[in-house]
């Protein structure tokens, strides 16, 4: 961009030098008064530019052509070029424009003015009464205006990456109409002046009307265009869905809206972290963290503003893209999302800064809506994904349940069918085996259904835990006695703390039964110890086996529903995949915590930890429960 500007400026200067060399220069030094008058006139018309903004293209139309025509008739060529350059430079400096822009405008004025002078000089006449000179003056003004349009369009085309012809078409018509009118006014002044020096005064009301009218029209159309752009940008941003995509698109729109060299759109996620996307000539990418931090600071409730980047401290400048100034607009406080838009402009601060800040501020409001929308969309999408996951889990659950129900049912039906089929042909042991199979598998089916119902109840929270005193010694020995047969006599009861806890006896028993069943299934050899202990005020019910144990990686997963760590052996053992899950659920229900530890020397130890507990004494149960636990009991418990 900078290189393109400098190249074009050099081109203009080359044209100027060539023309000044070609046109025979007058040796007379022009009178100072008309020269200064002309400079002043150029400066004045430069200072009241008429901006015609067409889409993203801006074209400045001024009354320069009128002054140029007057100059052509009253001064010699070099003086006209000099006055035009001086006037333009003064206007630019007075407008506080950036150095590069001043340099470019001066060079462009020199180049285009010399071309105009060349055209006028070629006609060979400069009499104010000569129609040929009139034509030459209009032609010169047309060349001036046309050359100006072309060089501006080149820069816009380079800056915005658009096709040159598109840019010319977008702004050319208005520029030529305005400069035609302007040239005619100048010519009128010249002709009138030849009749009487005071006559051009007659044109003043006309000029004033034209200037005021076109200026007003231009401002209106600029306003209209800004709203049109804002509307377009907003309506496009209404369709955004992804969060990052939204930031990208909004930064892009903001950059286009303010013809910036770069733009950043940053927004706060629901957790308060700021995320930013930077868009510049190289495309879009996540904004550097330093820039995000720097820009997020503008979400301070002070509204939109224009910041001269030269005035920021070095650290802040280094974090941001290189530019002359920064238009920054946070979404108004109370917006549905916290958003800050920042547009970096290479062309320095000018009279339009405040308007730009307002436009960006308005767009920031839309941006906040778009971002809130995107966040909501992501949230809904996430919820939907979770729901789908859950659905999938449920389908898998149903498939697994169906499989688990089929296996015992097969044995039951096949055993009974065999008995009927081979009636009278079966020996007693076979008959016995078949009946046992049918009964055992029927029992397994019943347990499975029980567990399924319990899991369903626990998951729906429709199960309540009782709170009554539970004699732990009786509980442990009861479970051991009940399951001793099924476990092949491997169960050992270890009652180290024969106390009482207030809990739900059925659920505690169910947990122990399931843990014992689990141990019997997965630890084929060795004793299985069912114990009750007390450590530091916590009652621990545990089931210890000496089987193969559970791999570290699987220890977390083993409490999940239908997680069968080893499908085949689970199947062989007739597991439901629900046992441990149900234990975990029940433990939660009785406000205990179920954990898995490794048995020293190999195997699993499942520990159900319960808070509270007291040692039994001869007093009735109710009183025991209500009484605060005596300290001596605790001490005694620890030393048992």
């Amino acid at each position: 961009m900078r290189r393109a500007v400098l190249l074009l400026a050099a081109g203009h200067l080359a044209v100027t030098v060539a023309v000044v060399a070609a046109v025979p220069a007058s040796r007379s030094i022009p009178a100072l008064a008309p020269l200064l008058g002309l400079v002043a006139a150029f400066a004045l018309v430069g200072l009241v530019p008429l901006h015609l903004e067409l889409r993203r293209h801006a074209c400045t139309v001024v009354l320069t052509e009128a002054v140029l025509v007057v100059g052509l008739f009253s001064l010699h060529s070099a003086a006209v070029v000099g006055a035009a350059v001086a006037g333009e430079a003064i206007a630019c400096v007075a407008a506080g424009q950036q150095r590069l822009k001043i340099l470019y405008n001066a060079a462009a004025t020199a180049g285009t003015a010399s071309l105009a002078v060349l055209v006028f000089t070629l006609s060979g006449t400069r009499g104010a009464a000569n129609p040929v000179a009139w034509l030459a003056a209009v032609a010169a003004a047309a060349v001036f205006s046309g050359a100006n349009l072309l060089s501006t369009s080149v820069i816009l085309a380079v800056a915005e990456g658009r096709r040159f012809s598109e840019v010319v078409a977008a702004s050319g018509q208005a520029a030529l109409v305005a400069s035609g009118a302007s040239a005619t006014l100048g010519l009128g002044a010249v002709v009138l002046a030849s009749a009487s020096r005071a006559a051009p005064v007659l044109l003043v009301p006309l000029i004033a009307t034209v200037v005021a009218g076109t200026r007003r029209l231009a401002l209106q159309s600029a306003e209209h265009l800004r709203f049109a752009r804002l509307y377009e940008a907003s309506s496009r941003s209404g369709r955004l869905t992804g969060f990052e995509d939204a930031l990208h698109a909004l930064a892009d729109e903001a950059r286009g809206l303010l013809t910036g060299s770069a733009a950043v759109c940053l927004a706060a996620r629901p957790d308060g972290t700021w995320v930013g996307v930077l868009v510049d000539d190289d495309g879009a990418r996540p904004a550097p963290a330093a820039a995000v931090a720097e820009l997020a600071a503008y979400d301070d409730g002070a509204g939109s503003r224009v910041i001269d980047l030269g005035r920021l401290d070095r650290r802040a400048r280094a974090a941001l893209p290189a530019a002359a100034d920064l238009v920054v607009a946070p979404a108004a406080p109370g917006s549905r999302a916290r958003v800050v838009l920042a547009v970096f402009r290479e062309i320095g601060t000018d009279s339009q800064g405040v308007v730009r800040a307002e436009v960006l501020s308005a767009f920031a409001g839309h941006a906040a809506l778009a971002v809130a929308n995107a966040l909501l969309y992501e949230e809904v999408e996430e919820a939907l994904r979770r729901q789908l996951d859950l659905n999938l889990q449920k389908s898998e659950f149903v498939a697994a349940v169906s499989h688990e129900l089929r296996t015992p049912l097969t044995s039951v039906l096949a055993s009974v069918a065999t008995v009927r089929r081979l009636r009278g042909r079966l020996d007693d042991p076979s008959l016995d085996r078949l009946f046992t199979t049918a009964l055992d598998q029927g029992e397994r089916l019943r347990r499975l259904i029980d567990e399924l119902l319990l899991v369903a109840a626990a998951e729906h929270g429709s199960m309540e835990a009782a709170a009554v005193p539970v004699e732990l010694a009786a509980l442990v020995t009861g479970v051991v006695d009940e399951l001793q047969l099924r476990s092949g006599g491997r169960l050992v009861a270890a009652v180290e703390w024969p106390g009482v806890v207030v809990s739900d006896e059925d659920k505690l028993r169910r947990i122990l039964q399931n843990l014992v069943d689990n141990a019997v299934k997965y630890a084929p050899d060795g004793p299985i110890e069912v114990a009750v202990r007390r450590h530091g005020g916590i009652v621990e019910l545990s089931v210890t086996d000496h089987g193969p144990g559970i791999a570290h990686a699987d220890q977390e997963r083993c409490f999940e529903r239908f997680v069968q760590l080893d499908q085949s052996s689970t199947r062989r053992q007739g597991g439901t995949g629900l046992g441990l899950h149900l234990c975990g659920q029940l433990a939660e229900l009785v406000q205990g915590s179920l954990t898995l530890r490794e048995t020293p020397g190999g195997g699993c130890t499942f520990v159900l930890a319960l808070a509270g507990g007291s040692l039994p004494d001869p007093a009735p149960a109710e009183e025991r429960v209500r009484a605060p636990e005596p300290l001596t009991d605790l001490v005694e418990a620890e030393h048992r």
Partner: protein
Amino acid sequence: MTQGSPAPRILVADDDPFVRDVLTLNLEAEGFLVATCEDGEEARDLARASRPDLVVLDVMMPGRDGLAVLSSLKSNPSTRDIPVVLLTARATDADVWRGWQSGADYYLTKPFDLDGLLAFIGQLVRH
């Protein structure tokens, strides 16, 4: 079964001991010679070594699953012609389709109809 010809041999591969037991009782009562095994690897090796007249194959078995055993039997010229009955608790349409695709001669889902299974085995083995 004609007098004098050896009894047809049937291999039952299922990891569920009850299914093995029930099928053995019934098939022996029908006059078949029954061999059993409880994993896929063993089923394939036994089928290759002894060329039974029919194989009853469970799908979910430790080692090598029934479908893999089926494919390897059907792709080996020496075992290609042995009829295979798939017996499985996997009962979705997709599972059944995969079973047929793998070249099963019959596909039964558990719980199975014992009379139907025996009748079918009788037909397959005795033509």
